[in-house]
């Protein structure tokens, strides 16, 4: 099975075969065997070419993989997805980015915009208090505020959709 691993601006094509309880991976580095054994939920001991790694894939969002303590934002794209990307359909994904959700629970203290306002990517949308700190939630994309689902003074759970930008 062919995949592409994306990390930052780097991409690596790999071909994975399952061989018993191990994986055989072909890539620009040649053929290597990967042996990943679960230690805890979402935490693996990985041997690749006899090098030892501890790999965590246990965050809610698996685009974050932790290798020997280093958190990495990776993408693993399969053949179908790569084909779609070649057809230029990749941008579909980006519109999803207009959904702004909370990463942690907290108290909304201030909202800087109203529905209909234009925002630039990176501008602070609102303030949320959590863990003794005030956290700015920034616009992930530029666009128009389509919906605001919360009010200042409201306590929100993790994962609440708070604002939609379109």
């Amino acid at each position, binding site marked *: 099975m062919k995949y592409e691993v994306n990390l*930052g601006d780097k991409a690596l094509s790999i071909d*994975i075969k399952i061989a018993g309880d191990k994986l055989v991976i072909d890539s620009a580095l040649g053929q290597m065997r990967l042996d990943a054994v679960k230690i805890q939920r979402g935490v*693996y001991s990985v041997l690749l070419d006899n090098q030892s790694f501890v790999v965590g894939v246990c965050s809610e969002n*698996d685009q974050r993989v932790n290798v020997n*303590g280093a958190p990495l934002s990776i993408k693993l794209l399969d053949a179908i997805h790569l084909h779609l990307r070649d057809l230029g359909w990749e941008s579909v994904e980006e519109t999803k980015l207009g959904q702004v959700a909370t990463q942690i629970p907290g108290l909304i203290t201030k909202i800087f915009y109203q529905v209909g306002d234009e925002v630039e990517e990176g501008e602070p949308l609102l303030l949320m208090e959590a*863990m003794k700190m005030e956290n700015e939630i920034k616009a992930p994309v530029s666009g128009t505020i389509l919906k605001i689902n919360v009010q200042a003074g409201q306590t929100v759970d993790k994962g609440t959709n708070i604002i939609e930008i379109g």
Partner: protein
Amino acid sequence: MFNKILVANRGEIALRVMRTCREMGIKTVAVFSDADRTAPHVLFADEAYHIGASPSSESYLKYDKILDVAQKSQSDAIHPGYGFLSENTDFAKQVAESGITFIGPPANAIKTMGDKTMARQSMLQTNVPVVPGTEEPIDDIEQALAVAQKIGFPVLIKAAGGGGGKGMRIVENATAFSDAVGMAQRESQSAFGDGRVYIEKYLEEPHHIEFQILADQHGNTIHLNERECSIQRRYQKVIEESPSPFIDSELRQKMGQAAVETAQSCDYEGAGTVEFLVDKNKNFYFLEMNTRLQVEHPVTEMITGVDLVAEQIRIAAGLPLSLKQNEVSISGHAIECRIYAEDAAQDFAPSTGEIVMLQIPDGAGTRFDGAIRQGMEITPYYDPMLGKLVCWAENRESAINRSERALREFYIGGIETTIQFCRSVLKHPVFREGPYDTHFYSQYKNDLHKELAESSDKTMLVAGGTLFQHIEQLKHNSQGDKSTKKVKSNWVTAQKEQTHR
């Protein structure tokens, strides 16, 4: 000596205080909020009392409740830790009035040093240099401009009512001055409900250096050398060390003397910290005094061999200091890395969730003051600091090497932490070389974050392959445990989107 001490705090500092209590044969009482029913400080203590709901305003800051518990449990002293009620004059007073010993300085010392303007004014009566600037909050812009011109631009405008960088402005020249003051006043008003600001000389290449103080009730005041605290982000310390690579022994002696004088000026008792700014020419200026135990106190403990909490308790019990100034020595070098539940890649946004795997470093010269365990939930209610890794070795280079080794073996799974960020600071050539100043983070931010994001082809292969296997196993094991199933891959998302179309 006390028989039983109530620790009016939570997290790592509660545990740290209780460790010393137990070594001294003193019973410990914990207080806890709803969220902390099974927190490490509750498990560690001899007794534990529920004091309210999870938000600290409804529990750890409720001093009537804490005093009730102290009475009920027949505690004869209260240790406030740091934060929460540790620098609250009213609390200190009420504790004393109820016949219980407050393990901390007299209420008056807390009061004098608690207000920056008051502290500054009080220091002007001594020989301790303060940063040149206005002595009173600004009323008259013209008069303030005259002061600014006298001390020379650039100047710093600072809020009188609070910290954290809010209401702070650097002004480069006279033209920009009055606008900047106005902005700072408005920002300060909105942040602290107090629009007062004052002016200070802006120091170039400033070092944040603090001295640990101990003062007993018998008139003995000593310092236990400095801590270098210039590695900060958003005015929050990240890594501290002692001795400072910037301070020579002559300067150490002068600053130590000034720190002792500062403590004496407010009739200080207990453990305290005098913070200084030191400019590139080794001129030093009083910044503020923290009238409590400091987060980074273990750094001092490791190079001096003194248990600062034990000294606090002894002092509060009326005993003399266990050592004299000339018995304070520096042995080796210690470095503290603060481990926060924060995502450095997301501008240090706090991270919550379950710690699914935990491997705390250990071995020679390796100390972790924390309050976490595998399976524990990190909640959004309190400070995101998980603990402090403090490494000691015979010299600075070895202490850095040891810290790097320890950070490398530190594993906290399930939440984001600053472990990796600390590693990238320790690896940075400017840090390794030393000295560095408070601009370190803003100056080398890009290096640090680039280092964090970097990865070899092999790492990508490992990450990609393991992710593949993880997803495959989830697919073939749909009976797997729920918590694993909620992992959602980008790749799976892509497939879903395709189906929807």
